């Protein structure tokens, strides 16, 4: 169980402190943590679980805010981390993003939320729908409302109905004039292309995201045209397991609003939509670099937001890079980024230039790795297709919308 949660700003300042048990955790632990964090060169390389001299620390970094939890007793590490992630999700959902100012402005709400999310060091509820009924989010609507009605409390008067209902993620009395439900397939392609240009690993991590605005207690059934290609699946608690096991059908009563219905993996894909061909040739202290990017297997949809990021090795003194398409930026940290945008039909984007090496170095021994970004609207590259969505328990026909999107996840090409 957790003993204390701190929220630290990106300068290490304690923005918020929530003691959870009778055993007070002194603030000095934050100072220790911050020193430890500074001693690591790169803050993103800081381990999520750290043993300090007095406590075990779990830390999660989101948008510059460090969520730090302390414990002196054994507990499942993933539980602590998972909980901190949920806290971050809920806060960012409530406050419309995370940053130092928004937390300082709304710290009362943050306290209220933490109060309901964890008691005596043990997580209670992190379901956003339930929390929203206990504590109203500080949005513009409620601000306007409070001015109009004169009731400025952001705590609702009633207890959430869901706590008593048999579907804990949903209230029974949701009402919409226009019933609508949107299903999005969002996929990320992870791939590694090695030095010889061979695709050594390619898989897709996908999510089915649902945005539901439906009245009452609707019962939904979603089926795929080709469920057999899914390698492993994880479900939102609302999904009934039996129908999936027997017929690969997702049957569920959805929470209200946006939620992640399911996530899946598809392994062993054979090709990528685009190719990246880097070439490096060293000669007498300089290195010629040229990179070609193009469409390999046309997915039939527009590929846009194509970017290429790479870190030059430390032994490179200076670089001169230019491209025939898009723009190339070199940061002082020797990070280069080439943003291509949409791949044009008439020409193949290419970038070329020379790298000047440290004196005394003849050839380049350490090679950059190119991280590729792209986005394709309207298609799920894994090939997963939604067959149909049936909705029961609803008086009138709702509007149903489907979308698909594939983007690059960890897509890297080694030179």
């Amino acid at each position, binding site marked *: 169980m957790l003993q204390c949660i701190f929220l630290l700003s990106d300068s290490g300042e304690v923005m918020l402190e929530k003691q959870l048990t*009778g055993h007070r955790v002194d603030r000095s632990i934050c100072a220790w943590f911050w020193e430890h964090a500074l001693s690591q060169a790169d803050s993103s390389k800081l*381990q999520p679980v750290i043993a300090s001299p007095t406590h075990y620390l779990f830390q999660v970094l989101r948008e510059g805010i460090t969520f730090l939890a302390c414990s002196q*007793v*054994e507990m499942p590490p993933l539980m602590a981390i*998972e909980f901190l992630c949920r806290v971050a999700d809920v806060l960012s959902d409530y406050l419309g993003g995370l940053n130092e100012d928004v937390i300082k402005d709304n710290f009362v709400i943050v306290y209220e939320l933490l109060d309901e999310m964890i008691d005596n060091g043990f997580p209670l509820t992190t379901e956003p729908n339930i929390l929203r009924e206990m504590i109203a989010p500080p949005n513009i609507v409620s601000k306007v409302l409070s001015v109009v009605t004169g009731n400025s409390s952001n705590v609702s008067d009633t207890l959430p109905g869901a706590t008593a209902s048999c579907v804990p993620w949903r209230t029974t009395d949701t009402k919409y004039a226009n019933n609508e439900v949107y299903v999005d397939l969002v996929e990320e392609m992870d791939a590694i292309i090695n030095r010889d240009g061979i695709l050594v690993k390619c898989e897709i991590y996908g999510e089915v995201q649902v945005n539901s605005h439906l009245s009452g207690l609707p019962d939904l059934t979603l089926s795929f045209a080709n469920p057999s290609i899914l390698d*492993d699946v994880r479900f939102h608690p609302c999904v009934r*397991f039996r129908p999936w096991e027997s017929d690969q059908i997702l049957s569920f009563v959805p929470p209200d609003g946006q939620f*992640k219905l399911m996530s899946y993996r598809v392994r062993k894909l054979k090709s990528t939509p685009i190719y990246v061909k880097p070439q490096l040739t060293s000669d007498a202290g300089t290195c010629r670099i040229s990179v070609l990017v193009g469409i390999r297997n046309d997915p039939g949809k527009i590929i846009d937001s194509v970017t290429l990021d790479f870190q030059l090795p430390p032994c490179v003194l200076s670089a001169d890079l230019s491209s025939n398409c898009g723009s190339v930026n070199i940061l002082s940290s020797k990070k280069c980024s080439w943003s291509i945008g949409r791949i044009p039909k008439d020409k193949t984007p290419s970038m070329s230039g020379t790298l000047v090496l440290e004196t005394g170095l003849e050839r380049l021994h*350490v090679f950059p790795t190119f991280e590729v970004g792209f986005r394709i609207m309207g298609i799920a590259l894994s090939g997963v297709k939604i067959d149909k969505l049936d909705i029961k328990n609803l008086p009138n026909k709702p509007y149903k919308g489907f979308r698909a999107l594939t983007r690059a996840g960890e897509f890297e090409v080694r030179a």
Partner: protein
Amino acid sequence: MAPPAQSNRSPSPSQPSGKSEVSDLKLQLRQLAGSRAPGVDDSKRELFKKVISYMTIGIDVSSLFGEMVMCSVTPDIVLKKMCYLYVGNYAKVNPDLALLTINFLQRDCKDEDPMIRGLALRSLCSLRVANLVEYLVGQLGSGLKDSNSYVRTVAVMGVLKLYHISALTCVDADFPAVLKHLLLNDPDTQVVANCLSALQEIWSSEATTSEEALRDRETLLSKPVVYYLLNRIKEFSEWAQCLVLELVAKYVPSDSNEIFDIMNLLEDRLHHANGAVVLATTKLFLHLTLSMTDVHQQVYERIKAPLLTLVSSGSPEQSYAVLSHLHLLVMRAPYIFASDYKHFYCQYNEPSYVKKLKLEMLTAVANESNTYEIVTELCEYAANVDIPIARESIRAVGKIALEQYDVNAIVDRLLQFLEMEKDYVTSEALVLVKDLLRKYPQWSHDCIAVVGNISSKNIQEPKAKAALIWMLGEYSQDMQDAPYILESLIENWDDEHSAEVRLHLLTAVMKCFFKRPPETQKTLGAALAAGVADFHQDVHDRALFYYRLLQYNVTVAERVVNPPKQAVSVFADTQSSEVKDRIFDEFNTLSVVYQKPSYMFTDKEHRGPFEFSDELGNLSIGTESTDTGVPGHRVEANDKDLLLSTSEEEETRVPSNNGAYNAPSYDSSLVSIVASQPQSDLLSTNTVVPSSASQSSFAIDNLLGLGVSVTPALAPAPSPPPLNLNPKAALDPSTFQQKWRQLPISLSQEYSMSPSGVGALTTPQALLLHMQSHSVHCIASGGQSPNFKFFFFAQKAEEPSIFLVECVISTANSKAQIKIKADDQSVSQEFSSLFQSALSKFGLP
């Protein structure tokens, strides 16, 4: 120590420096306190907000306590909440003023809005002021009976808070019994979950003094309770599910049908969106099937996909926690993950601690079919920008080579590394080539050709230099200019800062001398002279030793320094399998992340999940009444812990019995650390043994362990009487399993079996009858020729003390490997000899 954030802030003009602002606030609050003007709540809110923000940034606003309480008479719930927060923060330092708040909190506890009732009750319990407990009891009592589940949820946690303030009051009010009733009857699962966590905590700490609590705690693990919880598991919140799963992991099912029932019921938990649930389920499955080898295997197959998905979804922090667990599983059963090796390929922008885990996994899963691809991948990392990872990956290539898969291709790769002209790459590769040659001397020809081209001037790192020098000495007959390279190295003796290198240099020159005396004689003289004059004790001694050895007899010297060598077949593992097993037992805990069992990094104070010490420097002295016949386990563990912290590579020793306690010679640094620990820590003995055995798990499964701890304390005889075993000992399998999990290994040995014994061992049954005649009973056996595995137990004649034995017999090499666990560790040595003599009589007519 003041947080720097605070000290930095004080000079800043925009931030309040403290005093004047606080007194200002005090004034304003006072004005508002009595006012009933419209809009007063809004201004109060602003003020409260200010007060709390001061509190948050660390300014002491406790002097406003009275004013805050006065202002808190309000229907506004946000104001109330802020006030509760404030009061909760300062009540402990202001117990007298806290009394002021009781009144309004008590009134709020009777509010008609359940939300306010709940909040007030929570705040009331969070005051944690000892002299206010009398007010708590009544409110908690009615809170537990409240019609609203929210209030009941809060009240249950309140009981636990009360218990920590005053255990006596809590027990006297009979709250544990009420919670027990709620646990089994409340319709709301959150109430049930809170009852479960509260009762576990209360009963565990009560169990040390009360028999009844011990029994109560036992009932939590009884079949009806466990089944009741399992049947409702889908109704629980995801976090509560973790709690239930954790509890079920300690339940010992009576037969395999039960195990399958539980697993079938929980199958879908592996698809849960919450990673913590998935991992808790994984732990449960693995532990349930520990004794069923085939099913255990299937479980691995089954959990593989969910865990791999968890790694690729979620934030980097989550992936890391999952990956640590995956790492443990891969190390235990690499062959199961052999086809998934691509999941362990490193991504460029992953943090290096993740890459390190992945490299280790890649090394582990390498087998005949995937070695080529894995090594190709690893070689790409060698040109990585991240130098530590580049080094790690070269080491990984070497490790795979030493595992004997497709060495041909790997040796070529390693030799390519040597030519890469990157100093760290060359260094790592040299060390590896050295290890490789020790295992595969047949490769010396190819390697030496390449190594000979490396100039020793380019090698800076001591380890690499030592490796190069070793090769120069070992293969001086094949390397044309070995004596001359050594000569130039000796000339620069004074520039060589590493003693390790100088030691190797001495030995290498000696070896070279035996192979090519005329060319080396002069160099040897110079080396010995330099060595004898060296300020480093070891170098000096070795040089002197060589010198005298040569003086005595050159042929003897050659036999000592350069004997014919056998190729090394297996390199020692850095972590003993015992330690790995312990970590596995502690699956889904911090132990996995640290890759150490909890006894290596946790104070005994914090073993149990529910014990706190207020200050770490002030460790409570729990075990003063200990005898002096110190069973070494805890001390041993402690000592090991310290050793490990100074050098990671220290081989972990198998915990032995008390004899070992006196043996370790502490070096000075060790002593200083030990001395800084409170004396009680070193002396704490018997009572600690069981807690160290079950530290990871909630103390709840400590039932047997606790019974055990009493036994040795009652019999403080320093020299135990000769060991007699009870010929009619009985133990049911579930108790055996539980004990096996809890107890540490007190002895682990290997015996040679007599040929007649091996001959007689055709079926496991043969040995069973024989051992039974020696009062050692078998609880499970299996295997067929040439490998058998047995689990035995025995009981002391007069005492309930039990010995557990795992015995693996391989008839192929006539060896028996034996692990003994014992309630009373002090006599495990005697038991071991008894067992051995019984075993040696097997097969004799």
